[in-house]
């Protein structure tokens, strides 16, 4: 189960970020932000090597002692669910692309994917 789920805009700011337990929020933010380095690296590598082969799975981005950060994974059910929910948010005509995500449905779906922490 996930302890932190973040959706990052292509400009690298968080569209949505949520973590459990909440007291470590800052640490998660730092971790997620730092792992963007690897995302950038992988994306640019993908761009060079296989431009036509659009692989959304970035795999393990940033292992830390306590947690592992995975990039957008489509080949697992978890990420497909996240992707579908994200698509729903984007399809909402009242959502302004670029704004932070405040959808309740998305939030609920993310909660279901998270560790049910005490």
């Amino acid at each position: 189960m996930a302890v932190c789920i973040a959706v990052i805009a292509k400009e690298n700011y968080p569209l949505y970020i949520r973590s459990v337990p909440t007291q470590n929020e800052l640490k998660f933010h730092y971790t997620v932000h730092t792992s963007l380095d690897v995302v950038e690296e992988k994306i640019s590598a993908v761009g060079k090597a296989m431009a036509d082969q659009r692989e959304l799975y970035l795999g393990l981005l940033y292992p830390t002692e306590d947690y592992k950060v995975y990039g957008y994974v489509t080949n697992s059910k978890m990420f497909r669910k996240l992707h579908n929910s994200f698509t729903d948010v984007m399809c909402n005509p009242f959502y302004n692309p670029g704004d932070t995500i405040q959808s309740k449905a998305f939030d609920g779906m993310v909660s279901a994917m998270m560790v049910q922490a005490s």
Partner: protein
Amino acid sequence: MEAHEEKPIIYTMENKPIVTCAGDQSLFTSLYTSLAQQLPKEPMEWRRSYGRAPKMIHLEANFVQFKEELLPKDGNKALLTFPFLHIYWTDCCDTEVYKASVKEDMQRWQNILRLHSSVDWLIVVVESDAKKKNKTNILPRTSIVDKIRNDFCNKQSDRCVVLSDPLKESSRSQESWSSFLTKLRTLLLMSFTKNLGRFEDDMRTLREKRTEPGWSFCDYFMVQEELAFVFEMLQQFEDALVQYDELDALFTQYVLNFGAGDGANWLGSFCAPVRSWNGLLLRRPIDMEKRELIQRGEASLLDLRSYLFSRQCTLLIFLQRPWEVTLRALELLHNCVQELRLLEVSVVPGALDCWVFLSCLEVLHRIEGCCDRSQLEANCSHTVGLWTYATEKLKSLGYLCGLVAENGPTSEDLNRTVDLLAGLGTERPETVNSMQSPYKKLKEALSSVEAFEKHYLELSHAAVEMYRAIGRMRSARLVGKSLAEFYMRKGDPERAEGFLEESLRLYVAEGWSLQVTHTRKQMAECQKLLRQTDDYLQTSALLAGDANLNQEERTHFCQEILSFASQPPGPSDQTVALSMAAFAQLRQLQFSPPGAVVHVGAALQLELRVRCLMPVAVHVGQLAATLHFSLEQGGARGRAGSSQRRPGQGPQGQGDGVVLFPQGSPLSGAGCSLTPALELYEMQDRSPSDSSLNSAGVVCKNVHLLLRRHDSNASLDTPTAGVLPAAVAVDDGAQMLRARDVTLQPGDNSILFTAPTGEPGSYTLRQLCGSVGRVQFVQSHIYPVVQYEVYSQEPQLTIEPLSDNLLAGIPQRVKFTIATGHYSIKKGDALQLSNTDSMPILHSSRCSATILSSTGGQLPSPHEHMGERALSIQSSEKVTSISLPPTPPYHTLEFQLEVLCHIPPAPLKLDSERLTNGEVRHRSKSRSHADSAMIHIDQKVSIDCPWSIYSTLISLTFYVPFKAKHTLLSAGRRKYIQVCLQNVSDSNFHLADPVLVERQPTTTVELLSLNAKRQQLVCSQQSLFCLWEMRWAKDLPPCLQCEFSASFVPISALDPPAAFKTYRYEFQLDRVSTLYSVKAEICPASGDKHCRTGTLCGLEVSITRQAEPSETEGEEEESTEIEGLKTTKLMYEVVDNSSNWAVCGKSSGVVSMPVAPSATHRVQMEVMPLFAGHLPFPNIKVFKYLPHSAAQVIQPDTDSCLENDNLSLLDKGLDDQGDTASIRSRGSVHSVGSGEQQREQQRGLPMPRLEPFSPGQVFNWTQGRQVLVLPATDDHVMEVNVT
């Protein structure tokens, strides 16, 4: 090889599969060298079980002397010491010898093998020619081999091979070698397959028992590692690695299961407290110490992991995959920490940090040992993780051992350090002599504060450098931030500042608010220590408004600012300018009046709504907005260009004077890395003359924002709220919006400004500045642009009629409107109207003016009533003076006056111009009013206004309510004058006393009125006809000038009956007397009493001269003298326009009338009635016929020719149709040739002229006469025309 060791040393990597040699040892020794060389030369394909891919493999072997001890006993599963093949060597060629000893020896060997159920053996018979030659009683070679085969290889004849002359260089020898080696390899592989397969099966069986109690992972580990060893021995590193990976996965799974509550007994041994943390050891191929611990079941988790990884590392390096080592290492280290936590193994605090630190460095050393520098540099991304991890661990050790504290370690810290160092044990023999080993590094780093700092900085900088090199800026910043924390702990804020700033900039640019808040807090601390007051205050302001902080923290930072602000400034201290963005956000601004366009001096208020971000109420001494003033005075009232954007009508404006300020996203910094939204507005370019659309377009207003470069550097360096604005210049502009002593509550506040409107021009809000004691919060730009305009207006006088149309001849009310503009009407100011005769001003004593104040801008906004003032009007001979009441500027003064425009006697000449009282020349122009046929008079009034030295000319248009028309009527010689007076206005009038007089009365003519005496009502658009008979005694004057006059008064229900005014109409009558009379008779066909349709009738026309032409008339009439008789030529013409008659034959002609009274000319013609009934007579027209005379210089111009044509085109419609006889007969002579050709002829040739008579000169007796026409007898059909 007897020198072979008793026990193979398995920790050298020189292991080879064991092959035993029995039989003739000296023979084998002689062949050993070549054999060892030849065996691996050629690869063999190894086909494998379980569907594994076949492999080409180079075989090597360790040849040892056969001993029975070498054969594995039952249950011994060791594979490394397992002899895969047993060879018996012999060069016996003598049957006797064979029988005597060799056979027996072989038998013994075979028995031993059989005892150990080993079936992998081979007998080699070496033949040599030299040996054969020595002996005489030599049996054929084959016989010995056959014997051996016969004795030992009952079905496996291939188990006995012959090697011929192995030491000779002959082709036969080579062939023999080759086949021998092939055999040897094949048998070896067969043995491998068989024995390894059996081993694997056993191993699997063992693994399947892992759920049984008493199963030991360590035992199983040893078994599978045996297999790994063999693969490694066979140089099959991949396969060997797989064995270790399987073990790794199995163990990991057990730990995870343990975490999930499913513990295995054997795991207990791994849960022992960690006592040693001396890190990985990767310098040996096999760490025998650890292996033995595992074998004995005494290994700790770290021991097992270390050993496993060291084996994996060795194999990966054999496989030339060093970067996988680094990745796996990081994973391993993370994993170990997690596993120890999961298994709840008790660890001395810091011990794991030591272990990780040492391990990281060990891995890095190992990698450095097998790669060159360039390779290392190119693969930073693989090693940097380990560097960072080591750095982190060293840092946490430093914190743990009090090496980062400003005061150095306490005794407790020192004790802890000693404990940690104890767990490292002694340095390993491999690195004892090297200068820089991980062990030495750690020991040194923990030895003193200085050494720690040196090592920590070294590692940190290395990590930062590597991250920079591979472009991982975020990671580099994170390490940098960690360094900053270190420096802060060390009390060195100068060094920390740079790192914090870099990090903060990144977080702000990428919009990560939690990081921004966290880093900013550290920054504030740093700046406070550095005494960077301005920066600290700015950061405090940002933090005070930061929603990520709790109320307490925010209040703290807010108090920091307020307490600074309240300090009395020192002599050198200046005010501190901070960015407004942190303090408050502009929400909206509202103009009142909403148009934001006012006249000079008018009141304009701006309501600014500000969201204060401070957590507590802040008292602002002064809130001021500087204004940029520009004289761009397009005459605000005149500016109506649709493309002009008015304040309040911007993209956000709702047209009600509200400017909304765009709000950044809640993440203050994210907005700047986002591209701003397009701001478009429509532009239309209209032609100034007729306001038709020339072009239309869309203009993007914020191109400068959108087309900015967007490379990563720019976006990171964009000045944002996080970084102070470069210079906040507080512009001391003269013009300001000011509000004093405002208390801003947290949240939305509303502040009212009164805008200066002293000078006309356009005012743009530039900066907003709030002063709190010594601190100023400045917003250097206000976007979107907010501006208002102040205009100045010239005073203006307009005069407009109260009703739709002003009528001439009747008193009319007009409204005077004075828009005072910037002029203030003082007491004594007066309007001077020049009096004109044609339009006197009728003033009464009671006259009052209304003063209205115009509030607001261009729109004709509702006027505010100010009150009524009396108006005094004095009139002198030339000037009417209207004294105006005092009126303030930008007000409207209104009053009404009555004027009367005299109707000039009609008909008016077009260009009549009359000078009135000498100086002013006023023009009365009359034109025929297009629709209502009203004649109007433009009356100009000249007015001197007090605000101008020039006179104002104002034109008023009056309409003449009547139109008169006169007609001369004749009855034989008697004459009547009819005047028709038409009321063309919309009002009703009473008319009285119509009078017609001669203007120059002659005694000869008397005008006898035939009209009623009473008043008559003439309604709108109706006419009144008046008739006079003309009587004269002697001769009629050729020209009669008359004047018609009538009194009129408008009928109004409201007004009391007014006095009658006179309307006059002058006209002139020429050529009044009758010259000719025309009579006509229609005679039915002979023998008939009445005319019948379709029958020709006779038409007799007689023209009689009634009077001799007078002298004047004679001049006009062309008279010719023919044979002494004076005649006048006339042309007559019979036309029937109503198509009742067909004129047959000649229809026109020219007659010469003798100039004698009662001279008559008769003409006979034939006409045919086309219809039955009382038909009017056909028209008979008479014209003057003026023949062409050569003397006539004037060539008949085309116009007159055409005129004649027109006259002659009597029946145009019919004429055009065609030339049937009947139509032609009805056509006129002239009409025939209306073709272009004939016209040309007419133009070219001199033609006689026709001229009509004036009305009354020719009297037609037949006018109105009718004749009865009977229908034709044989007509049974009667046509009835109903029209």
